[in-house]
């Protein structure tokens, strides 16, 4: 982990989002793309599905290229992962976005909703890490 790789990875994320805007005029928000597949059977289904296909293809390239994906354990029990995943899905659906849609695309557009959303999830993210990982020692 170093600053250059973090920055470079970030630039790639920004380029991907710009590509989605240039070709399809859409915001690259992963939760909206996945959520949209749950109940939107319009033509939008196709770009959403092919985006997810690309995401998985890109994911397959990471380890051969030497980038680690979920290798290090965080010491969190699977029950907590289930609860956390549920909250991520519920929260992104209610708040209309996640780290990509609000945190990257929305902040870049200076959208007031996205700025408020990002500040909110940073604060509660900090609180949940502090309580679970620091005080409860990983919930085990």
């Amino acid at each position, binding site marked *: 982990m170093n600053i250059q790789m*973090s920055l470079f990875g970030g630039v790639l994320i920004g380029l991907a989002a710009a590509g989605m805007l240039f070709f399809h005029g859409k915001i690259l928000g992963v939760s909206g793309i996945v959520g949209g597949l749950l109940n939107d059977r319009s033509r939008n289904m196709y770009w959403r599905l092919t985006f997810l296909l690309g995401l998985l293809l890109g994911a397959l390239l990471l380890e051969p290229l030497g980038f680690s994906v979920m290798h290090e354990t965080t010491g969190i029990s699977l029950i907590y992962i289930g609860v956390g995943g549920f909250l991520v899905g*519920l929260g992104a659906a209610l708040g209309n976005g996640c780290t990509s849609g609000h945190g990257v695309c929305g902040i870049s557009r200076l959208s007031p909703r996205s700025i408020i*959303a990002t500040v909110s999830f940073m604060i509660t993210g900090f609180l949940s890490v502090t309580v679970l990982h620091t005080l409860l020692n990983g919930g085990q």
Partner: protein
Amino acid sequence: MKEVLYILSPVMVGILFALGLGISGMTEPKNVIAFLDFLGAWKGDLMFVMGGAIATYMALYKLITQRVKRPLLEKEFSIPSNKKIDRRLIIGASLFGVGWGITGLCPGTGLVGLVTGNKMAVIFVLSMLLGMALGRSSFVSVAFKKVRR
């Protein structure tokens, strides 16, 4: 040609996005948790990821929306115009943050993690889909309308 591009461009975008997440270190939940751990062993890497992404997208967003009349493959841009800050947004984002902090995963990195077959990623994605289905159900929309005065 346009039909081919219609299918292929999101694939390319998805690949680029996954590479960005992996190269930046965000596919290791430990790095995300370390960023949120202000009172513990704080590591600021995620700040540079967001900084790089925001600077890039901000510049290209301006360029594209000002210079191009419409996206290459669609009739118009679909950019959210909602400016209303309501309870639903704040409650939603706050719940999202709690889950993000517990797991160190967001929807993008959870999906990327699926290819490793890691149990953590599978459970995360399945429960995320459940949460999304509940959050998008009419049941929840009605509940939010009722409490609004």
